[in-house]
């Protein structure tokens, strides 16, 4: 997909394979995307290997275990914790569950949440933007005004509003608050992608190569998918990467407020939210999920910034 995008962007003079390599190379040359990729690699491997790396299940209560106590502080044998105590790298939470297991499994959940909500928003957003740009006229006007209205709210406030409303509506399919939260976050993110897509449609629609394919008898759909979409890929990828960071943050914030993932789900925001009154007695319950959350958001932010800088033709070095 990205190979196609770069071919169209830079003209047919280069061979696709070397261009793909060039693109990846220039992304990797950006310090920020490199750091972002490394951090992301750590998080993804932690999430994939969560079952192997963690000694306990995320919801398992270790009440019957010798030496395991509620809100137990971290105990690492390598760092001089007495070996007669069982090892808990990140300590135990208010229900005597292993925090390390919960944090790693939380990574899995957060990545899935981030990628799904953004994919949903990108699919819906690009379709809306493409139709608005192609059809134009009153349709474009109405659709884009609706997008303006969605953008006129502070994002988290609108997400909270949609999530409470969807929750109160009692729609049969939507009973899980986490799904409701993801849906709300996805809806709020749609206008960003719709705008990106519409802008590329408008800028490309009248270009010579599009007119040429139209003259050759290409269908509207063909033009959309072969000519317009590849050209819109760069901003969509950049926005999407940054959007994953936002989505992870917003789901965590909603769960923190009690609107997203519900206990005992191992979700970082929910984990912090349920123990926020114990921050003074058991800070490890806040710090470990908090660091995991911040690092994930940082990874996607850095990666998005790096891709933007690498692919921005105005910054050609």
């Amino acid at each position: 997909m990205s190979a196609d995008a770069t071919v169209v962007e830079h003209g047919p003079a280069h061979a696709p394979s070397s261009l793909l390599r060039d693109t990846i190379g220039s992304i990797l040359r950006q310090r920020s995307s490199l750091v972002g990729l490394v951090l992301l690699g750590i998080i993804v491997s932690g999430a994939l290997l969560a079952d192997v790396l963690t000694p306990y299940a995320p919801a398992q209560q270790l009440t019957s275990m010798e030496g395991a106590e509620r809100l137990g502080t971290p105990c690492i044998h390598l760092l001089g914790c007495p070996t007669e105590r069982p090892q808990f790298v990140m300590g135990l939470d208010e229900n005597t569950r292993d925090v390390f297991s919960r944090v790693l499994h939380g990574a899995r959940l957060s990545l899935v949440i981030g990628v799904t909500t953004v994919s949903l928003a990108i699919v819906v957003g690009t379709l809306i933007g493409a139709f608005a740009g192609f059809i134009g006229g009153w349709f474009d006007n109405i659709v884009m005004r609706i997008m303006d209205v969605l953008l006129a709210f502070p994002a988290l406030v609108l997400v909270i509003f949609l999530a409470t409303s969807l929750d109160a509506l009692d729609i049969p399919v939507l009973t899980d608050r986490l799904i409701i939260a993801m849906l709300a976050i996805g809806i709020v993110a749609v206008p960003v992608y719709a705008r990106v897509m519409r802008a590329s449609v408008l800028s490309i629609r009248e270009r010579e190569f599009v007119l040429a394919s139209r003259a050759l008898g290409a269908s509207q759909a063909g033009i959309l998918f072969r000519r317009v979409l590849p050209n819109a890929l760069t901003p969509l990828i950049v926005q999407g990467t940054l959007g994953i960071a936002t989505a992870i943050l917003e789901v965590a914030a909603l769960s923190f407020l009690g609107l997203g993932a519900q206990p005992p789900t191992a979700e970082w925001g929910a984990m912090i939210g349920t123990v926020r009154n114990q921050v003074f007695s058991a800070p490890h319950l806040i710090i470990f999920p908090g660091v995991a959350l911040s690092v994930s958001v940082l990874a996607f932010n850095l990666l998005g910034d790096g891709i933007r800088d690498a692919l921005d033709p105005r910054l050609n070095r």
Partner: protein
Amino acid sequence: MLAFIGRRLLLTLPVLFGIILLVFTLTRLLPGDPCIAALQERATPQLCADFNRRFGLDEPIPVQFVSYLGDLATGNLGRSIQQGRDVSQIIVERLPVTIELTLFALTFAIVTGVLLGRLAARRRNSPADVATMMVANIGVSVPVFVLGLVLAFFFAVVLRGTPFSLPPSGLLSPGMRHEDLAIVWGMQGAEGFPRAVLDFVSHMTITSALISGQWEALYDGIRHMILPMVALGTIPMAIIARMTRSSMLDVLGLDYIRTARAKGASERLVIGRHAFRNALLPVVTVIGLSLGALLSGAVLTETIFRLPGVGSALFEAIASRDYIVVQAFTLVTALIYVTINLIVDLSYAYLDPRIRL
């Protein structure tokens, strides 16, 4: 300029209308008969029919929408299901706290962000630049509620007993006296609008302590404000720092800067007089954008630091499923957001004449 203001106002109207329509539609879709909510166990079919007629709930939806617009215009935002009070009353009590917190956070964000961005741009690629941009990147990524809780833990527990310890919750220490303005100025007799203004300002603890000379309360209030201010202001601060840096670098590459340098102007003069002022223009837009982060973050900040503002009221309303309050607060926040963005746009046009064209 007038034509520009007029055009910008006209563009805002459909958005305002859309916001109200969206909130209205979702309100009407929600289950829960308003009659049963209001009368509770006293509700009978007969009473409910009367109730619906009295409040216009038996009218067609478009008619209801018009009367809803009328309600909004007169400040009637509905009644809290849980508290049994008018939502507008709750907002008058709680909004001042949020306004004060947001203004402090915004000031912190602008001052620190602009200083850091300017420093980074002046020493491009120096360790100071790298460090500043690392702080900015991390600052954007740490969620408000994580930063807030960590700050509270550090300053209230780790530094307890040192001069640097700071209180982690509330507006004032327990037992700290803070008199309402009406009492300090001997205006208990005031009623109506003047009294409402006095009460509104009285709820802004620091401001009212400052203007009425309650120095102990002022000192205590500022100490309580520092942690929430930093927690809420860090994300906008980081955004502003990055924007200031890149905008400074853009300007420093322009011809007139080279001319100024060629004329022998000192570096201080070039940066301070020629580059900095022009570089501030894009920063104004970012300030408008960070307002969304501030209003969103206020919900989390007020919840963590137990400040009685609109945000924590929203949190309480979520917890008790008081969706009338949630909707009213969403509406009010969106209206504030749109208005301030309008002001930012207009001031941008004032600062940069090219925009007006």
